[in-house]
């Protein structure tokens, strides 16, 4: 029993393992960088880093095959390697203190990246001048919203994630007096108004509202950072007495489509996935300065007003490049602008483990500096001895 345990132990503490793992991670990072050209930054993170294995499909099939260890696998083994090596090999001496601290920082950094991968969320908020919003929107995911507006006091909203539409899953929700049946779904499509007399080109007939006049042009998925996929779905609503009709929905159709059923008013829309906040932001003014005589942006900034329903917060804030707003565990930073400088685009990030990299940095900086000084001192000592010996 002793022997296998020892070889197991030796394997995990060996420097050889460290070197091999680091070499593998270089290959992984390099490969992922190249893959970004085709897949875009989000898909690459899922495929290479937030996974135990990099999967590739066998050509012309849907069968995935692991071809390379993924980020979790390499990172996890590195973590084990680091921790075990520290426990079993390092004796905390003054000479090794720098190295010890550096590696401790590295452990924290690896953990921080793991937690970030698990918990970090990013959204966007587009605000026109004067507009107030109390929600942000995902810039990758969409949702089908069915809103009952019968009561003028409040809306009753049911949202269905895009995933279910893509799968064609039928949804029966207790708050809806009808079933929601996705008939057709394109993950990215352009919509055009159909010319009179031109037949629809899609297999599912739409018989309600604007969709009856639209032509749908399916597009390949885009992975570019500055473009987003705009899906369209054909939704049939079926009540106990039969079909209410089929609607075509898309985030490109800015207005929700209204209808009446069983004496109640409804609206239906496919929209960017929303995340409501317990506070609201109003864009007061967006400014965009350019360098004289050029189109090079010198700075852009948004003056916003932050208000909470309880009135505890009501203040003006200036968000500009390198100066985000941090509020309620979220970071709002100036990401872009649109609409002839009248619309601001704020990026919103939630990262609960944001302190870990800072702790890691502090540990590593101190460690590296200490190690560097210790080595330098040793080197100078040696030179002094050598020179003394020569003379």
């Amino acid at each position, binding site marked *: 029993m002793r022997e296998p345990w020892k070889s197991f132990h030796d394997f995990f503490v*060996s*420097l*050889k393992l*460290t*070197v091999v793992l*680091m*070499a593998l*991670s*270089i290959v992984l*990072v*390099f490969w*992922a*960088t*190249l893959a*970004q*050209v085709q897949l875009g*930054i989000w898909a*690459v*993170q899922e495929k290479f*880093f937030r996974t135990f294995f990099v999967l590739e499909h066998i050509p012309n099939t849907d069968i995935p095959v692991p071809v390379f260890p993924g980020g979790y696998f390499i990172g996890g083994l590195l973590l084990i390697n680091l921790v075990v090596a520290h426990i079993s090999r390092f004796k905390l001496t003054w000479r090794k203190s720098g190295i010890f601290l550096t590696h401790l920082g590295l452990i924290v950094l690896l953990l*921080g*990246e793991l937690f*970030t991968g698990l918990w*970090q969320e*990013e959204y966007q908020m587009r605000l026109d001048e004067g507009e107030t919003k109390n929600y942000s929107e995902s810039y990758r995911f969409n949702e089908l919203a069915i809103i009952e507006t019968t009561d003028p006091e409040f809306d009753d909203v049911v949202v269905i994630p895009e995933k279910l539409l893509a799968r064609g899953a039928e949804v029966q929700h207790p708050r809806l007096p009808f079933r929601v049946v996705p008939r057709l779904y394109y993950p990215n499509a352009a919509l055009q108004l159909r010319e009179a007399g031109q037949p629809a080109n899609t297999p599912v007939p739409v018989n309600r509202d604007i969709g009856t006049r639209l032509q749908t042009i399916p597009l390949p998925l885009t992975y570019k950072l500055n473009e987003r996929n705009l899906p369209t779905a054909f939704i049939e609503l079926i009540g106990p007495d039969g079909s209410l009709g089929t609607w075509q929905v898309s985030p490109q159709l800015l207005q929700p489509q209204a209808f009446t059923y069983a004496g109640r008013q409804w609206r239906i829309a496919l929209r960017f996935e929303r995340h409501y906040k317990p506070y609201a932001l109003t864009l007061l003014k967006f400014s965009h300065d*350019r*360098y*004289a*005589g*050029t189109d*090079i*942006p*010198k*700075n*852009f900034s948004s003056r916003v007003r932050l208000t909470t329903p309880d009135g505890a917060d009501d203040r003006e804030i200036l968000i500009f*490049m*390198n*100066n*985000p707003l941090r509020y309620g565990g*979220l*970071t*709002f*930073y100036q990401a872009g602008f649109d609409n002839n400088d009248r619309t601001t685009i704020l*990026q*919103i*990030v939630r*990262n609960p483990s*944001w302190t870990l*990299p*800072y702790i*890691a*940095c502090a540990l*590593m*900086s101190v460690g*590296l*500096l200490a190690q*560097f000084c210790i*080595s330098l001192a040793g*080197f100078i000592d040696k*030179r002094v001895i050598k020179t003394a010996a020569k003379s």
Partner: protein
Amino acid sequence: MKRHLPLIILALGAVWLLASLRERAPETEFDVNGFGRLPVLVNGRIKPMDTVARSSLLQLQGRQRVATPEGETLAPIEWLLEVQFRPEKADALRTFEIVHPDLLTLFNLTMADGDGKKRFSYLQLEKQIPELERQSRLAQPLDPQARSPFQRAVVQLHANLVLYHQLKHSLMMPGAPDFLGELMRFQAMLPLGIEAVRARQAGEPFDERAFNALIELGQRYDFLSASSHLLPVPPAAGADPTAWKNTGRALLDTLETGAIDAHVLAYAGLGHAWQRNQPEQFNTIIGLYRTELAKTLAPRLKKTDVETRFNSAQPFYTSTILYVLALLLALGSWLKWPDILGRSAFWITALAFIATTAGIATRMWLEGRPPVTNLYSSALFVGWGSVGLCLILEAIYKNAMASAAAGLTGFCCLIIAHNLSLSGDTLEMMRAVLDSNFWLATHVIIITIGYSATFLAGALAMIYVLRGTLTASLDRATADAITRMVYGIICFATLFSLVGTVLGGIWADQSWGRFWGWDPKENGALIIVLWCAIILHARWGGLVKQRGLMNLAIFGNIVTSWSWFGTNMLGVGLHSYGFMDAAFWWLSAFIASQLAIIALGSLPLASWRSFRPAA
């Protein structure tokens, strides 16, 4: 005598360096240097005319010198004067570089028609410009990366012609036989014309001739204003200091002020004197105009004066030559007179280092920024950093190894910088996202020093391998010394790359709320850190010995060049099949050369010429 050689070489180098600071007297009687120092606002920055001339020429034809058909050489500022004041003469100068054969065919030209087989005049291109514009319209909608080499050449040449057109329209209307006279007539007719316009607006009878004449001139100056990006007219005292105007705009404003702008008149006067070959008049106007400008723009004039001097001193060009000299002296020292030639190499390196330091410092002062703001300045700084490290190493080890490495890296980095400067003015304005002096001064500098160190370790290792395999001159003691140097520099590189990368993460977290985003540049930095860590751990674990360490350090060159340039090319080389950007070929060639040296270094010791047991 032999003993004093290093000092003599140092003195000669210093004299040569100082001589480059002296302003070269022009060959004409015109005070063209004075004209070159006049300030204009272009691309968001106030710069001297001289810089406009030089960066325009670099963009148009890849060099600053202009050859006339008569075989004479024009200074950049003389060329600019011709373009602005005597375009009919400038049109005949061959300053447009065209190398793509299909583009030459488009203009019905052959290589033989060009100066140096690749430079052509505006007159040679003029007839086919409509066709070029059509081709450019076809290429414009495409992503820059998706364009074919021909389309890239079309778009580039089109941009160059636009630049030339803008320069021609920057100070006066090209083709006007007497622009100064025209302005005088404009001034004289202004009261009548304005009255006619007012009367017409009020529905009263008006002087139709005066009205038409004014409208015609208004349209003419509107066209002039739309045709130029160069803003030579400074704002009035107390106005927004960035509100400079171009000539056409300033003339249009005459309709409101009633008097023609003095700056426009001064330039028209200069043009008048230049066209009629009246140097005294030209020089007098320059003198008067400068005195006038100095009243409101004295601090600006100081900067443009220094920048003009900096342009003509060309400290980076001088340093390039000194680095070659240092490399040769260091190589020579391994064959003969190790002490004397070695010390000479050290002093020449130090001299070149001083020149680059002065150059970088001047750029920093001009820009009011930390040293690294774009790819060009990063190339300068990488070279500067590794040469600085070399000077320290050489002071300790005194075996000319570090001087050789300094010559090599310094020379290569300056050559890279030169090629990066061909795209225009290298003192660009910072885009909003980068506009943070604090992070530019910390993250960017530290990470760039990390590049310097990895390249230096790679250069030392290359010298080790080449000297060891190809010559018998590498002895045990020197080999051990190089190993210690490489190891020390790798430790240094690890420290700086890691700290720089982590600082970058903090900047990202401060600005964007996320520490790490896996974008190509971040990944490149991470790979450098990992590679340095691999080298150190492999060394500590005894996985590699001396030669292994050298090969790993040489591979570090590849890793660093990928992070530095490769990540910027991702959109280029890999996207558009069948075409690689010129820089991509250079990067590939560099990587191939490094792999070849690694292969050489992996030869069994028996095949090395050094380290052979005495037979």
